[in-house]
């Protein structure tokens, strides 16, 4: 077992840990008091210095994102808390919302203060209905205690928080798709530029941060950036919630320092592979990340840069573990179908390509594959999402990263487990 003392989830096993009184009893909202005495610029600099990187998937430095907000404009600025957790294999934000909602809210107020925003939103996944109800209560509590509203804690800073429920589209987790949806439109990602920091919600400067990213803020304020950087690799440090699911004995959310070996996560924390089976493959960061072979999984560390080095990503840290019994063709088909179903349909390559992939894969799975299919799948994935070579930059071919999100896993399945696919095809060919 790990000896790491959890930070974000330290109190989640306590009774009533979601209440304001409990949160305050463990030092909650002390960071807010500190922040209100600081200048907004100082808060941004402090967060920049901590090297906190976004926990939603892209891993963009949070402080840098904030600093893109123009400070002199006349338009109002907005903060959106992205609680549309919908990446398959990811369930960390739900835990944070259920157990530590005030920690999230405090983070939101800190971030809002830093970017000079007076209205912040929580965009919560439609399926999280209980969590939505809880957040409504939490926000009401915060208003009562003057943690929200006019003149927060006696300062001259005002902030309102509005909770908005999504309607169940995966793509609304993409920040510009989310903004469109929040505006009441179809959740179609916007072409960039302009980036949300310049023209986001209602064409006003907007920052979209993930639930977990925001949850880190109170701790960074309280304990300082140097402390934060001391946890895990310096370039992408901090505590991290890893969601482990699939064929393991003890699936769950584990808070560990960035950079923990994936092997430890699977075999130590999650109790190893079920039924004593052999490990076959792992998604390190949700179903959008390129899949790892057992060999790769046993040697990689779970942080942004280590995973990027082997052409996959930390993503949302949704670790999906597959053992030797998993049929890779069926698993790949499952992934492809999911993405074909969730593609918003705006961009040509993604709309047509995802459906094409899933048609080919389902043909292979039903035994009608032919030997050209493998190469064709690889070409199609390249045409949707571009090459998976981080050193050359990601060759994105669509408005949002959804194209890559389907291309990378599918390509990695076929590339790394080609024999599994060939078996399906050769069976058929030998029958014929």
């Amino acid at each position, binding site marked *: 077992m790990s000896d790491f003392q959890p930070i974000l989830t330290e109190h989640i096993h306590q009774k009533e840990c979601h209440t304001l009184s409990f949160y305050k009893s463990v030092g909650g909202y002390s960071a807010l008091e500190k922040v209100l005495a600081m200048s907004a610029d100082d808060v941004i600099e402090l967060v920049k210095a901590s090297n906190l990187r976004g926990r939603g998937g892209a891993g963009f430095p949070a402080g840098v994102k904030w600093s893109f907000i123009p400070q002199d404009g006349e338009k109002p600025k907005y903060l959106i808390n992205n609680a549309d957790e919908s990446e398959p294999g990811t369930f960390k934000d739900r835990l944070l919302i259920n157990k530590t909602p005030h920690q999230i809210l405090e983070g939101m107020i800190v971030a809002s203060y830093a970017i000079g925003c007076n209205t912040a939103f929580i965009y919560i996944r439609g399926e999280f209905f209980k969590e939505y109800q809880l957040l409504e209560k939490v926000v009401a509590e915060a208003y009562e205690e003057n943690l929200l509203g006019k003149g927060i804690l006696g300062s001259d800073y005002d902030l309102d928080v509005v909770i908005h429920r999504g309607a169940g589209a995966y793509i609304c987790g993409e920040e510009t798709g989310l903004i469109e949806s929040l505006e009441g439109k179809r959740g179609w990602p916007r072409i960039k530029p302009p980036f949300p920091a310049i023209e986001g919600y209602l064409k006003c400067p907007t920052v979209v941060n993930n639930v977990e990213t925001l949850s880190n803020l109170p701790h960074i304020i309280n304990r300082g950036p140097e402390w934060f950087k001391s946890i895990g690799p310096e370039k992408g440090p901090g505590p991290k919630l890893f969601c482990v699911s699939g064929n393991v004995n003890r699936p769950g959310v584990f808070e560990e320092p960035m950079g923990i070996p994936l092997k430890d996560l699977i075999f130590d924390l999650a109790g190893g592979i079920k039924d004593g089976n052999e490990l076959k493959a792992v998604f390190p960061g949700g179903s959008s990340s390129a899949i790892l072979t057992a060999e790769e999984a046993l040697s990689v560390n779970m942080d942004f840069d280590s995973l990027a080095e082997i052409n996959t990503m930390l993503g949302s840290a949704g670790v999906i573990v597959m053992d030797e019994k998993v049929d890779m063709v069926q698993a790949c088909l499952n992934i492809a179908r999911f993405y074909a179903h969730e593609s918003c349909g705006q961009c*040509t390559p*993604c*709309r*047509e390509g995802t459906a094409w992939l899933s048609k080919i894969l389902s043909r292979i799975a039903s035994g009608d594959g032919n030997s050209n299919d493998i190469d064709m799948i690889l070409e199609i994935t390249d*045409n949707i999402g571009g090459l998976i070579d981080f050193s050359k930059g990601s060759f994105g*071919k669509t408005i949002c990263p959804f194209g890559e999100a389907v291309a990378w896993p599918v390509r990695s399945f076929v590339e790394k487990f080609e024999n599994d696919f060939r078996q399906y095809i050769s069976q058929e060919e030998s029958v014929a």
Partner: protein
Amino acid sequence: MPLLKIDNAELEVESGITVLQAATANGIEIPHYCYHPALETVGSCRMCIVQIEGMPKLQVSCNTFVGEAPPDKKIDEKYDMVVHTQTELVKQERKNVLEFLLLNHPLDCPVCDQAGECFLQDYAFKFGNAHSRFEEEKRVRPSEYLGSQIVINQNRCIMCTRCVRFTRQISGTGELFVQKRGYDFKISALEDQPLDNLLAGNVTDICPVGALLSTDYIHKNRIWNLHEQPSVCQDCSVGCNINVFYQKDRIFRVSPRENHDANGYFICDIGRYGFHRFEEIERVTSPMRRDEDELTEIQWDEAIKVVAKNLSDAKEKIVFVASPFHTNETNFMLGRFQKGFFGALPLIEEEGITYPSGFCINGDRSPNHRGMNDVCPSILEDMASEIDQQNIKVMYILDDGVDRELDQEWKEILMKMDFVVVQSYALTEVAESAHIILPGLAPFEREGTVTNDQGRVQWLRPSLPLKGKARPDWRIIMEVVNTMGQQELSYSDVGEVLAEMGKCFPAYKGVSLFRLGDYGLSINGKVESS
């Protein structure tokens, strides 16, 4: 100004425009579907990708802006941006996008109305692959009516969403939307609000493929059989620029022609389908004389002589009725009659509409009201009382045409006349009251200039041949004037009349058909009669 290099062309362009705009303005072709200059950019078709030096990914040129680079970031020490549109990478990427677009396309060009002017067809030929790798079942959906005159062939749709954006940003009516998601997408109209606004027809023009079709044109002809005549719409005083597509003596289609000083990119459906109302009317194709209650055909010589004699006998007790439906040249020629009063019938007005995008349909439904006032000698404000006071019994009317309905007052005025000459192309109410009818030309047969409500003079060009013995209206008047012996006019074509008009009205000085060209000239603020 930033210095841009696209392939081998060095271009100085305005800061802030896109690579696609810079290329298009300089005659460099970058294929695209979803981008339309009148609509907000969505960048979704991915066809307009280009390679830009210093950028790792291919970029969509519709959303890549050209700006000044700092001195140390200039490429080759002078270029602010270097763009390649013909590299292998770009060519391959176009092939890829086209492959995706054609996966589920029915490839039914032989029966598709868009064939010949289809960007999917053109780009596929130019940039695509000759064969498909797609072995799966195609997506097949039935066609649907989006409005009473607009049909969508869902199978041909490439989801560029130009039509949806049009109804949101141009007409502001918002009838269209994308239904379902991803691969199952479908362009639909709201159940209780079909696509029936007065700009609806434009979606068939901006659709880059054969998905959106007008029921008015569907399966009627092939585009390569049709002649395309640039002209001007005559259904309101905006003077939208149009292309008239015709074959022999029949018009098949009218579509907008881009002119940023008049209509922009679009036209309304009144003008688009307006040509049909001239198709079924009873034409007058020969001069006619009223004997008792019957109209009988007579020869031109005789008709002109009778008219000339009656006008001469009336001395100055004549009213010449000008028409805002006729060209400047015809109205100007009417002014060559030296004795008499000049008047016009009341305006034909309906409700004008201005759309959120600024596109407007003028309530004044005559094409040349401004021009008529410019080139006719002082038109009487209150023609009716003048007729009574002066006891006028002779009238020479340029007929407004089929759109004119006579009110009771005018019916009574005409009843009082001893001699009425009507120059018309049809047996309209006005023509029915005539003693002599001189057959002129219908709207799509006329040539001349018209001046729109903004003071822009435009060249009205004919698309249909003359019918029967009909003659150009300005020429008829010239012959009557000459026969009366007052003057000896000898213009051989509209251009000469226009030149003469320029001598009399300084605003029109120097205006020639050649100078008007396709887009016209503004004479705003210059009008005063000599």
